[in-house]
């Protein structure tokens, strides 16, 4: 009698792929992957077959064709003799403009509302609750249309400013005109300007005046920071903090004013000429309506995020700070908010992304964002549906990924370091 048995033979049967727990999950994954790839291949084939049947090809050559249409709202030079590609860039810049303006305003309003909603003052906290609930629970498109309607119906027309007894007049010492087409504000002009330099093969120009001002401003801020560091060192060594506030302010303000004076800075005021106000910078109503609606709508969500963030900080923190003798606003700024930011930032990222994507509703009020220039007019005039929509999706995807990368980097910096 022997206890020796044969070692198990390494046989492999096909059924083991399904019944052997060592292989099962891999098998399932491979099957799912194959199914996914077949599905994708079918979609692609469908597109290819149908494009061929419709006699269409797939190329982006149309971007180099002359567009033949005009765009009112533009940040860089554009005319109807420019290409569709340039119209797309104009739209992209307009989308970025509204996204940046919207995110900024929404954050400011949202943080304020979120904090005020926690105010011990009953009236203020209730009012903020009403605001948040109203904006959160009504679709954004309705808000955009409502605000656009209010702006274009209730504000005076340019012709109301005309005549012997005008029914409307300019505000702020005749420098700002509020009309139902937009708000005209004075524009900065330079009588001894340095001119512009074309960049990127003449595709757009950078103002040297602006560059000069920014350079001086940053230099002032940098030196100010050095002085501040030095002051901190003196405080660390002697215990006395030298007063540097005035010097630092002067360092920022005086050189900038000097540069403005050298460049011959003056303001160009809007004036009624012909059909519209001419001169000055125009903030068109579509832009304003979209900006106000997007900011207020997103701010309602941000307010809730901020409130949640603040409430996540234990009460002991504010009680301790209070016991140390800090005043309420210092408690908020120095103790509560820095800790709350760690809770606030991740959901804030998705609100920024939402705002950017919601800006595609611009088409409802005639703001020339990328959905309007590329997805609407260009698509319609060229008939390149597939290319235009894919490009549009690519643009939004790129913007969203960039925003979330930047915000994630910021999140990494502010999140709690665990050691």
């Amino acid at each position, binding site marked *: 009698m022997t206890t020796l048995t044969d070692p198990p033979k390494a046989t492999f049967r096909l059924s083991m792929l399904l019944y052997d727990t060592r292989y099962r999950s891999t098998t399932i994954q491979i099957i799912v992957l194959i199914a996914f790839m*077949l599905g994708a291949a*079918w979609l692609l*084939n*469908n597109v290819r*077959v*149908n494009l061929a*049947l*419709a*006699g*269409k090809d797939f190329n982006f050559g149309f971007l180099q064709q002359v567009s*033949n*249409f*005009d*765009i*009112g709202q533009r940040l860089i030079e554009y*005319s*109807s*003799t420019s290409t569709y590609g340039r119209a797309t860039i104009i739209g992209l810049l307009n989308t970025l403009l509204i996204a940046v303006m919207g995110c900024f305003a929404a954050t400011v309003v949202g943080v304020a509302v979120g904090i005020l909603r926690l105010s011990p003052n009953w009236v203020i906290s209730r009012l903020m609750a009403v605001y948040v609930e109203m904006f959160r629970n009504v679709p954004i498109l309705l808000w955009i249309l409502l605000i656009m309607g209010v702006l*274009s*119906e209730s504000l005076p*027309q340019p*012709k109301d400013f005309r005549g012997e007894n005008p029914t409307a007049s300019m505000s702020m010492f005749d420098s700002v005109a509020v009309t*139902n*087409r937009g708000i005209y504000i004075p524009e900065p002009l330079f009588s001894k300007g340095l001119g512009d330099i074309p960049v990127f093969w003449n595709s757009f120009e950078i103002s040297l005046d602006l560059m000069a001002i920014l350079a001086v401003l940053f230099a002032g801020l940098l030196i100010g920071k050095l002085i501040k560091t030095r002051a901190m060192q003196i405080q660390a060594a002697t215990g006395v903090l030298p007063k540097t506030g005035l010097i630092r302010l002067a360092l920022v303000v005086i050189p900038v004013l000097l540069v403005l004076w050298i460049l011959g800075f003056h303001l160009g005021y809007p004036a009624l*000429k*012909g*059909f*519209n106000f*001419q001169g000055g910078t125009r903030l068109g*109503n*579509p832009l304003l309506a979209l900006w106000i609606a997007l900011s207020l709508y997103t701010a309602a969500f941000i307010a809730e995020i901020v409130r949640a963030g603040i409430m996540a900080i234990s009460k002991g923190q504010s009680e301790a700070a209070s016991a140390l003798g800090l005043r309420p606003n210092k408690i908020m700024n120095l103790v509560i908010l820095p800790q709350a930011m760690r809770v606030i930032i991740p959901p804030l990222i998705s609100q920024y992304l939402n705002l950017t994507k919601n800006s595609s509703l611009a*088409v*409802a009020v*005639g703001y*020339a964002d990328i959905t*309007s220039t590329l997805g*609407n*007019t260009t*698509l*319609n*005039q*060229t*008939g390149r*549906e597939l290319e235009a929509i894919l490009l549009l999706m690519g643009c939004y995807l790129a913007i969203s990924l960039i925003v979330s990368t930047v915000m994630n980097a910021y999140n990494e910096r502010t999140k709690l370091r665990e050691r």
Partner: protein
Amino acid sequence: MKKSVFIGALTVASLTAGIAAAGTLDDVKARGKLNCGVSTGLVGFASPDANGKWEGYDVAICRAVAAAVLGDNTAVEFVPLSSKTRFTALASGEVDVLARNTTWTLSRDVDLKFDFVGVNYYDGQGFLIPKSMGVTSAKELDGATVCIQSGTTTELNLADYFRVNGISYEPVPVEGNSEAQKLYLAGACDTLTTDGSALAATRAAFEKPDDHIVLPEIISKEPLGPLVRHGDNEWGDIVRWTLNALISAEEYDITSANIEELSKGTNNPEINRILGTEGNMGEMLGLDADWAKRAIMSGGNFGEIFEANIGEKTPIGLSRGLNALWTEGGLIYSPPFR
């Protein structure tokens, strides 16, 4: 085994997706309804009345085609399309005919792969402006804010006109005609521009039409007509000759009043061929002999349709002008039924 069924199904699915483009006549007959793309609401051309029944100049073309093909001018499914969605809807087969005051251009005909079957309205782009502005010519519009429908040929003509004349403007592109109207009436734009016929229709719908004028300049040629997909020529022929039948009917004085009498037979062979008492025109088109008779009975001949929907007795009040028959100094002309 299962896998081969799956792949088989895949092949069938991708094939059927492709075939849908051909055989529109059979599709329409099988469906029992004609899908017709029309404007989202332009009084006189295509708009639903108080009972939700679609009526208008473009609608009449759809009804005539339905009457010719299906024998019933109410067997039409009207699909309201914006200027942006219209071509996609036609190309994808969502509609069989697009009769939505669409301008015949080379790129739409050739690059977008459509067939314009004819012209039912010779139009041109104009400007609507409040009388109180005191403007008498489009050349005085320097610096004006202009409301336009985005994605139309009018947007391109506008850019060309202002560039050629060296004057500037501020475009406000909006999605549809009703939005443009609202902005115009609120004074958010100085002038509204689109095809002259649509301006007349828009003005007619205003509370005080007399406070607004259409400027004399016509800045473009806008031949409007029904269109079908490229590649199904049999279907294109049917829509083309339905339109021609309506035009010929006016030319030969076939009206909805005397058509029954004329269809008993006349001594004019052309009338007989149109009405199917002579020859086999219907058979050639894949229809029966009475197709044109039914089309004409649907809403009357070309002239009757014009007068009933947009003519001088209607609030829109358009005169025939270029849209009179060639025999009366206009451009409306049908090739012979022979």
